[in-house]
């Protein structure tokens, strides 16, 4: 009964939330959990097939949603926290929304993305059958602390999970260590050929997580992802069970997984990892993968994942939350050889991380290439990002407190494309401005 009240209360809050136009997808769940703390603990019983969870610093939402799309295309009913509310409260909201009026939830699969820091708490109630870990990068230090802390949290979570099949990124030395946990049974996906230019960015996991010696790298993909081995203890990149080769980054992206050709219309090298993780997880779940290309036709990226808005020229909105994400976004901008304007918006609210020193760990200076036309900065920390450019010797053409002004200025230049790179809380306002200027839906501030 308690549970039913919690679900009703949550449903009511969701309706009220919609009426007042709130975007938060965590609060109905948070409220319902207060009434019934064990609300989601029967997910394992409800789900007829598997519970698949996705963690990792970058690519969680995309990987999880791709997974859900693929399973739905196969005709399954999937419980999925699609909007990326990834703490227990977000999962509770998802649960409430899929419950019927009698509080019953039906699902074949659960696809849940989970914030690394919350995995031990979530796994106390929900035992994953399959756990995907995409990568580990330095993230908002004021919230998560050092990366070693995150590693320990995930290890605790795995111990809590019971017997679990792990799908891990072979190219990330920080990720691979989880495959050694006692109750884990791991498969690995990885990219085996050199694709990107070798750059000297800030690399976190260059040291062996087992013995601490500096790892030898044959080459890097980006950050600490690459082909590595430890001269000290022999820890090394495992041979991928899902081996990616023959990559072409020109749109549409083409590559092969275990020799099977894939073609997808996404931007960004990192999306190959996201797709490979989904492919591997489906296979581990016992699903067929020979129709993989077709399964993903219905996939709609969440907002801000290289999302294109068409004006007199395309405006592409890209969300990044940490140095590794921004470096990848910048590499994607660099790979576009049209004449371009770039707008960068940096906020420092709680969800962004209040500490903006990470701006200096991003290779922002690389944004300046032969095709850069106008560079504009905005956001709450507009001065910080502008200073970052000043000390890199790069001229900022427009510094403004208004995203709208920045976009209007860019639409007015003779560039062929505009990129808008934002961090978390700058995303929704940027999207609202772009929709407003298009005269479309969702206008507002």
């Amino acid at each position, binding site marked *: 009964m308690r549970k039913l009240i919690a679900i009703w209360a949550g449903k009511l809050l969701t309706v009220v939330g919609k009426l007042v136009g709130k975007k938060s997808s965590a609060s109905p769940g948070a409220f319902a959990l207060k009434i019934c703390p064990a609300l989601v603990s029967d997910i394992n019983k409800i789900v007829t097939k598997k519970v698949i969870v996705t963690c990792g610093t970058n690519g969680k939402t995309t990987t999880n949603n791709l997974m859900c799309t693929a399973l739905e295309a196969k005709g399954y009913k999937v419980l999925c926290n699609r909007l990326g509310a990834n703490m227990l409260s977000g999962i509770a909201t998802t649960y409430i929304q899929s419950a019927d009026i009698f509080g019953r939830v039906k699902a074949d699969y659960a696809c849940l993305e989970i914030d690394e820091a919350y995995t031990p708490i979530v796994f106390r109630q929900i035992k994953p059958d399959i756990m995907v870990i995409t990568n580990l990068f330095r993230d908002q230090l004021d919230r998560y602390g050092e990366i070693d802390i995150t590693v320990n949290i995930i290890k605790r979570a795995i111990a809590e999970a019971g017997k679990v099949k792990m799908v891990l990124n072979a190219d990330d030395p920080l990720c691979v260590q989880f495959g050694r946990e006692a109750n884990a049974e791991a498969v690995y996906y990885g990219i085996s050929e050199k694709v990107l230019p070798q750059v000297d960015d800030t690399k976190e996991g260059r040291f062996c997580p087992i013995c601490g010696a500096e790892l030898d790298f044959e080459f890097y993909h980006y950050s600490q992802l690459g082909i590595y081995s430890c001269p000290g203890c022999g820890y090394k990149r495992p041979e991928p069970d899902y081996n990616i080769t023959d990559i072409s980054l020109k749109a549409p992206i083409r590559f092969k997984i275990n020799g099977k050709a894939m073609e997808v219309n996404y931007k960004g090298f990192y999306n190959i990892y996201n797709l490979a993780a989904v492919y591997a997880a489906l296979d581990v779940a016992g699903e067929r993968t020979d129709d993989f290309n077709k399964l993903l036709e219905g996939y709609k990226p969440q907002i801000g994942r290289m999302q294109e808005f068409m004006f007199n020229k395309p405006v592409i909105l890209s969300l990044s939350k940490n140095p590794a994400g921004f470096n990848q976004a910048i590499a994607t901008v660099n790979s576009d050889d049209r004449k371009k304007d770039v707008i960068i918006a940096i906020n420092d609210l709680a969800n962004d991380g209040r500490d903006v020193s990470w701006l*200096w760990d991003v290779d922002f200076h690389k944004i300046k290439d032969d095709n850069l036309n106008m560079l504009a900065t905005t956001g709450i920390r507009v001065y910080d990002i502008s200073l970052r450019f000043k000390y890199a010797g790069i001229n900022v053409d427009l510094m403004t407190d208004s995203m709208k002004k920045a976009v209007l200025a860019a639409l007015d230049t003779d560039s062929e494309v505009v990129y808008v790179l934002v961090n978390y809380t700058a995303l929704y306002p940027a999207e609202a401005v772009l929709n407003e200027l298009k005269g479309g839906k969702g206008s507002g501030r």
Partner: protein
Amino acid sequence: MHLYPDLLNLYGDRGNIECLKRRLQWRGIDAETVAYTCDDTGFELSDVDILFLGGGSDREQKIVCSRLLEHKEMIKDYAENGGTIIAVCGGYQLLGKYYKLEDETIEGLDVLDIYTEQGSKRLISNIILESDLIKAKIVGFENHGGRTFIGSHKPLGRVVYGHGNDESSRAEGVVYKNVVATYLHGPLLPKNPQLCDYILTNALRHKYADFDGLEPLDDSLENMANEYIVNRFVK
């Protein structure tokens, strides 16, 4: 010389190096950064004018510490003879006698008569100081578990907003001869151009007896970034 940038690189420290270098170059003064990394041997300070020591994770800091202890005397002499050192966060803690953690004590370089003990919770905040060294307020971000006790040493500044060396003293950082050590990152120098120039002036005076001061630069952007933080948190 940037000490162990491969290990101590947690909070955008390369911004401090860029800032020191650019502000010299913009004035027509040659500047070169030498990185001393894990792979290097033959540690030598005789040609070094500014030594920078940043912050790292606990694990990386321990590695650095064990390596630097071999050069303890050299670093100590360098500081005593007026060499310039900038130490941030973990680097600040390393300059003291020790850093006492829950289950172990890490021996420091003993350059300064200060020590650090692990506190119960991390002190994480934007932070603003008033300092006798410069007119403008010093702004930055702090994120540290250690509480540093500087004894009779002079602090870098008095805390106007944020925590500082510990919860109660309202003091932040330490200044000794030409050593400036602090918990402030952000990074420290780009938003505090006056502090950067203060440090550069000391280093240049130490190097050239006839040095007659730095030319002013256009710091309007730096000052806006600095004042934005001050106005947001103090007024």
